[in-house]
């Protein structure tokens, strides 16, 4: 394939019509009637008289000069020929998000497949690299034959909840050291339009702006015999949308329920459903539209039990405040034996639980006010608002461990890790505090319970978004075993089980069975992404950036000398012909 590095010189083609006009004017004969041709017999014939070639409207010299102009123009435009052997592969960055399925069977994905096939036919022999831009870029490898590319494109399933086109482009540049060409196939026009296309990049936008009703969020919560499911419907479109929402119970625990929903443009509608205890999976489905992928979610029951907690607090007021805080969160259950968390106001405690919270309260204390120093990255401090709080600190209290919360140089909350758990130390005098009357007090205990719940074997939740990092705590009894992940969509993953927490990356929706030794649980991954469901920003067009000089030099062979040499040869031929004609005329 040949490209022109200086296309501006194509304007030299304008010389051809100018040359034609000159020839026409020069060869145009004026009509003249004479008395007799008798006296004109000894004259030089006109340019257009004589043999067939000479009587042509334009002489062969004209065509020779046209060829010279074309050859000079080609030489000036700097033609570059693709070096098939040394060329960096053309990297195909394929948007693998589910919005590429909109409008099937004429979806952007199908159009992209056709364009890639045409591109492959036009560049036969060149290597193609394929990177799927899903939740994360996936490099599928380099391919030369059509069959290989066809096989690779079968993995372009467009079933991920978000795209990582930018990251995939960055990966492609890193792989080819900025020498290769990149072709992006997506459904959205590039940010900044055609003016900000980077070098060596061609952006093929294949989408169509459209309206779309979608389920953009879903969750399920169950505790103390209550089970609730909630979905958020959205209309990320420009026109009001109407659809039928159907709630099904795949386990057969109830009859399907339908409800008509109408959403104004950009409206969000939250729909909650109280479920009887023991309800199995619940499926929410919207009636079909251009994009089916975001019309269905399945919510499995959340089966996480509350945190077993015991109280060993002698101060009655403090005990009352702690019970009140624990009761507000529904994350704990008070037990007398085998607790996971023990809360006490004693200085020492036998290790009856894996986690202990020591509250240093004292009889008297001093009041600490803002500013407080908060370790924002720790889960215990998540959402903790201490504005206007007066914190009572016992006199002379010293807290061991890493401070998570402090007032000046006085630690208020610390954590000390142990092999089998950890100890929290809280300096708190209720009589000198307003903390127990603020939302931060139950939040602090809720954070504590949630964090400790999250450290139990398995995943902290059952229902996740597509592409969400799923933490998985290894069961202590499964050391040395393998973690097997099996989805109902054919997905299978086997990982070595490591001690502690590991992140599971599941970017395709479905129901997954998680097995680690004797441990077994189920996870549900749903396609929920407002941005992907918003088809307003889709567009169609091809946007091509400039070809960088370095890439051209690397990939292309400068063949400007060929038309230049041809022009010189044609010029010599032209001179020979014109010189011969002059000789004949003389």
């Amino acid at each position, binding site marked *: 394939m040949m490209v022109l590095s200086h296309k501006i010189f194509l304007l030299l083609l304008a010389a051809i019509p100018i040359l034609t006009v000159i020839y026409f004017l020069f060869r145009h004969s004026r009509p003249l009637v004479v008395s*007799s041709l008798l006296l004109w017999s000894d*004259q030089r*014939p*006109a340019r257009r008289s004589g043999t067939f070639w000479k009587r042509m409207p334009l002489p062969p010299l004209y065509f020779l000069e046209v060829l010279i102009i074309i050859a000079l123009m080609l030489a000036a435009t700097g033609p570059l020929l693709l070096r098939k052997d040394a060329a960096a592969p053309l990297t195909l960055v394929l948007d693998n998000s589910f919005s590429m399925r909109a409008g099937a069977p004429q979806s952007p994905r199908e159009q992209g497949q056709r364009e890639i096939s045409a591109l492959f036919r036009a560049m036969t022999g060149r290597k193609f690299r394929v990177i799927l831009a899903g939740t994360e870029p996936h490099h599928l490898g380099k391919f030369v034959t059509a069959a290989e590319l066809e096989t690779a494109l079968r993995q372009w399933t467009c079933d991920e909840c978000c795209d990582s086109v930018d990251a995939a482009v960055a990966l492609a540049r890193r792989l080819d050291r900025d020498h290769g060409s990149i072709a992006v196939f997506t459904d959205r026009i590039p940010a900044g339009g055609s003016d900000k296309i980077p070098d060596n990049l061609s952006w093929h936008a294949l989408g169509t702006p459209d309206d779309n009703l979608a389920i953009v969020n879903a969750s399920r919560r169950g505790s103390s015999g209550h089970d609730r499911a909630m979905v958020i419907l959205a209309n990320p479109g420009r026109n009001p949308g109407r659809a039928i929402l159907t709630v099904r119970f795949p386990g057969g625990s109830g009859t399907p329920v339908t409800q008509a929903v109408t959403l104004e443009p950009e409206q969000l509608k939250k729909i909650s459903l109280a479920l009887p205890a023991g309800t199995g999976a619940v499926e929410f489905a919207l009636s079909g539209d251009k994009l089916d992928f975001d019309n269905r979610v399945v919510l499995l029951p959340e089966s996480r039990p509350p945190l077993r907690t015991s109280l060993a607090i002698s101060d009655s007021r403090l005990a009352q405040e702690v019970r009140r805080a624990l009761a507000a969160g529904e994350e704990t259950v008070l037990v007398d034996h085998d607790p996971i968390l023990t809360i006490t106001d004693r200085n020492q405690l036998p290790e009856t639980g894996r986690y202990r919270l020591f509250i240093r309260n004292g009889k008297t204390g001093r009041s600490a006010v803002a500013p407080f120093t908060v370790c924002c990255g720790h889960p215990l401090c998540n959402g903790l608002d201490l504005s206007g709080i007066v914190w009572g600190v016992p006199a002379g209290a010293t807290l061991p461990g890493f401070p998570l919360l402090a007032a000046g140089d006085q630690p208020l909350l610390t954590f000390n890790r142990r092999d089998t758990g950890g100890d929290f130390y809280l300096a708190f005098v209720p009589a000198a505090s307003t903390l127990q009357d603020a939302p931060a007090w139950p939040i602090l205990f809720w954070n504590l319970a949630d964090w400790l719940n999250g450290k139990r074997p398995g995943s902290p939740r059952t229902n996740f978004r597509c592409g969400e990092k799923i933490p998985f705590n290894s069961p202590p009894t499964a050391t040395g075993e393998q973690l097997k992940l099996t989805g109902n969509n054919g997905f299978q993953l086997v990982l070595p089980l490591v001690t502690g927490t590991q992140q599971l990356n599941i970017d395709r929706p479905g129901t997954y069975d998680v097995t680690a030794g004797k441990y077994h649980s189920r996870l549900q991954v749903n396609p929920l992404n407002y941005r992907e469901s918003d088809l307003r920003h889709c567009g169609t067009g091809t946007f091509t950036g400039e070809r960088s000089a370095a890439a051209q030099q690397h990939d292309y062979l400068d063949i400007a000398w060929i038309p230049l040499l041809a022009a010189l040869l044609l010029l010599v031929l032209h001179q020979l012909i014109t010189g011969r004609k002059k000789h004949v005329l003389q």
Partner: protein
Amino acid sequence: MRNEYRQYLRTGAARGAGFALALQYGNFNGGSGFRLGRRCGSSLEFMEHRDYAPGDDLRRLDWNVYARTERLTVKLYREEINPRLDLIVDGSASMALPGSAKAEAVLGLAAFLAAAAANAGYTVQSWQSRDQLEPVHNGSGDPGRWDHLTFDAASSPAEALSGFRGGFLHQGVRIVLSDLLWNGLPAHFLGKIGAGSAGVIVIQLLAAADLNPGVIGNVRLTDSETGVAEELFLDAPAVERYRSALARHRQQWSNACREAGVMMITMTAEELLAQWDVQPLLAREIIRAI
């Protein structure tokens, strides 16, 4: 016939009214007439004496001379003739060359000469050469009444004359008005036109465009008579070559006329019509003012 042609006929006749044909040819043989010929005849006009030769009419012997000199002397008298003029007008298409005044000039000059001839007592018959040499309708009368004169023939006067069998006035004067631009032997034409005539005058009437084409560049030349076209590139040398060819052509005709005893005059149509300058005819004593 086009009205402007008739207008030029009238103009030419009016201009010729002040002139008379002044030809002094000796071979007029128009029978008894009213004009004195150059040969001996039977008029009362004495011509000369000469010695008697056997065969002379004895009635012409001048006995008074014999009485005085004892020599037989014959008394000769001038003959009385009736002079005739045949006007042959070239009717080929080249005489109506677009952009020139050749047709108007040739008609005006023919009418001029007819009027001058009438003033000199000539009997005038006008002809036009088309595919055949044809007498002009009303061609022996007033030029203003000549009719059916057109210039669209594809044949040259030589070709028209080749099939002509008689018809000219015997021993009359013949004047040919043509541009003489055809390919053929002038002597052949002059021999045929001069046969049985008292004299022939050829007046070559050319257009200014014939004398000076004045075009430069590529031209598509079309022969006005045959319609044949030819693409030529004309520059100053080419025009000069044309002028040389025209000069050679005229010289060829001039030589042929000299050899045949024919008077040849060249005139330019536009110059003639501009001021009716007939000085070339006066200079050659073809006409005289009256």
